[in-house]
């Protein structure tokens, strides 16, 4: 019995390592939890085994897919679970589907590096992993190395010098305040105890203020490629300074790179971003990207008075009702929608493009963002009330 338990512990440990390599954060504590869970659960079937491990290892809904793949591949390969519950399981396991489902490649890579340490028969896995690369929709990985050292230094310096936004919103929470309007009975009573209750020195509470979350939607399509690097640096600086910044990149589809951009070193953060994105410098589908955002993320990240920075040139190929509908929905679900458009650098810029015309009525502000100066201006704008000169309606009037 002791020997088989030893095997169990070892297998769970390897499985946890594989999960970690595949991108599910699994700590050492979770391995102990898993062993405890398995010992109390009286696992009777493969399903129970699966859900028991799932309960312990998966802490996010998004990870369920990865976990599922990892579980199937890992325990197929090891044949361990079958041995363990063979006596109770009447039917044989279903075969693997032929086309690798999404996530399979990551898992196989993860498993491959995990198995490396104890097994030598890994060559087939390696080939598998290579093949699935060609299955991917796109394509080119943007090479950040092209940025010259001088460029990086200049941009970093300038961005670091920017005084970062200090926009605040009132929360419903209270904090001790000299000028508050609510009496803080707790502190008042404590203070009056000092004088034996004879003197009552009133203490006050006022509303606590907090920085609102920032959500950035950055267009990384081909027409924006000259700017994306700089914007990512900017977003990295903002993320570094403030806690609640969520960053999405979109070209033909939407990618959440918040975790990647949170790394301290900007170069590492940008490299991690580019590794996450498949549609670098491709076409733009603003409407469908906004749609994906509205549906999957808006209700999760646009809480507590969020400000949305939409960074795009607005050159949408198929500008139709969907775009108007989605941008309107986005506008209605955030506190402030700021459109940053690098094309505004041309003085003669006019809202001629159909995409631009569709989007303009639905944004609170339209600002240029093509150099460090406009970036600094944006920062100032984020700290205070909307500036008059950037009213999008003005732009529409000019065209008419």
């Amino acid at each position, binding site marked *: 019995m002791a020997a088989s338990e030893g095997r169990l512990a070892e297998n769970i440990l390897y499985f946890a390592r594989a999960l970690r390599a595949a991108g599910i954060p699994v700590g050492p504590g979770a391995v102990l939890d898993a062993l405890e869970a398995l010992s109390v659960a009286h696992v009777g079937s493969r399903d129970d085994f699966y859900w028991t491990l799932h309960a312990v290892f998966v802490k996010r809904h998004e990870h369920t897919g990865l976990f599922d793949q990892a579980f199937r591949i890992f325990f197929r390969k090891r044949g361990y679970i079958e041995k363990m519950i063979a006596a109770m399981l009447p039917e044989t396991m279903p075969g693997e589907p032929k086309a690798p489902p999404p996530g399979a490649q990551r898992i196989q890579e993860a498993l491959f590096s995990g198995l490396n340490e104890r097994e030598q028969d890994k060559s087939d896995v390696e080939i598998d992993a290579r093949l699935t690369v060609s299955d991917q929709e796109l394509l080119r990985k943007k090479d950040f190395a092209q940025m010259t050292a001088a460029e990086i230094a200049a941009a970093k310096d300038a961005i670091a010098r920017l005084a970062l936004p200090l926009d605040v919103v009132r929360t419903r929470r209270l904090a001790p305040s000299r000028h508050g309007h609510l009496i803080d009975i707790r502190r008042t009573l404590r203070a009056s105890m000092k004088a034996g209750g004879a003197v009552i020195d009133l203490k006050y509470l006022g509303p606590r203020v907090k920085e609102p979350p920032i959500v950035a939607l950055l267009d990384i399509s081909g027409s924006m490629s000259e700017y994306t690097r700089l914007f990512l640096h900017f977003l990295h600086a903002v993320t570094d300074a403030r806690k609640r910044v969520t960053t999405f990149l979109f070209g033909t589809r939407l990618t959440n790179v918040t975790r990647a951009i949170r790394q301290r070193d900007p170069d590492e953060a940008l490299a991690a971003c580019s590794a996450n994105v498949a549609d670098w410098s491709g076409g733009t589908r603003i409407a469908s990207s906004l749609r994906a955002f509205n549906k999957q993320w808006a209700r999760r990240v646009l809480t*507590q008075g969020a400000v949305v920075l939409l960074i795009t040139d607005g050159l949408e190929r198929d500008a139709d009702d969907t775009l108007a509908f989605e941008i309107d929905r986005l506008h209605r679900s955030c506190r402030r929608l700021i459109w940053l458009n690098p094309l505004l650098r041309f003085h003669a810029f006019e809202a001629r493009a159909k995409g631009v015309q569709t989007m303009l009525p639905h944004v609170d502000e339209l600002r240029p963002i093509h150099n460090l100066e406009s970036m600094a201006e944006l920062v100032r704008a984020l700290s205070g009330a909307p500036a008059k000169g950037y009213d999008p309606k003005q732009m529409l009037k000019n065209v008419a």
Partner: protein
Amino acid sequence: MTDKTLPNSIDSTLDLLAKADYIADRSLATVLYLALRMGRPMFVEGEAGVGKTEIAKVLATTLGRRLIRLQCYEGLDVSAAVYEWNYGAQMIAIRLAEAEGEGDRARIEHDVFSDRFLIKRPLLQALEPDPAGPPVLLIDEIDRTDEAFEAFLLEVLADFQITVPELGTVKAAHPPIVVVTSNRTREVHDALKRRCLYHWVGYPNAERELKILRARVPGIAKKLSEQVVAFVQALRKEDLFKSPGVAETLDWASALTELDVVALDPATVSDTLGVLLKYQDDITRLDGTKVKALLDEVRSELRAAE
């Protein structure tokens, strides 16, 4: 009394929930069983109306425990969630002590900050011993509070203890059964999730939804219940901003029974669509022809199944 003890297997957990008309799938029962056995909080996430809060309520009734509910909201602070001093009574006590000529300040302070003047809020209540066994603590919609409150919960959920500066640390002799729910309007920090067993509650499949419907709306006709479930299942496949949850299915079924409907027809569906869909965009998307098409599909499907 025997039926009030904790379940001893995954199957008995399923039975326990079924006793209170909660039809769970096996994955949920597994997580729940583990949470009970390991004394860990359970973190339940999912769309609105899939029965997250119900889990805690059902647990409390079937196990005969007290249900303590902490509804989270944005301004939630310690005085609403954990404890507060009864200031009025404290002031009176101080005045009385003075009137009696009690001059010892330390003594007054000691008396005033005692258990007697403490108003216990949900979290503190949950740590107290209960004759019926440790209570069920439901921390509902944790995503509505801010990060600061989450950080506070870490101590409570890890060690089941709370520190009141004036009194000392209160520790639960028997940890309560904790169910934390979230609608995922915001990501809850990993540190909090790490301490819990996580489960995502999805929409049920047709078979389970039918069981739920029949358990919860007993008076419903067989044919109507099948149609309702098939229609809602078809609706969830549509591209909607907010798909109807189980709660909406149940509401709709009750509404239809109230209206003495025996079988679905396009007009009735259009009239009562507001029970299922809560966004105007979704309702306009589902116009008369669309409803009819869906309904025809549902009918032919049911006919084929017979």
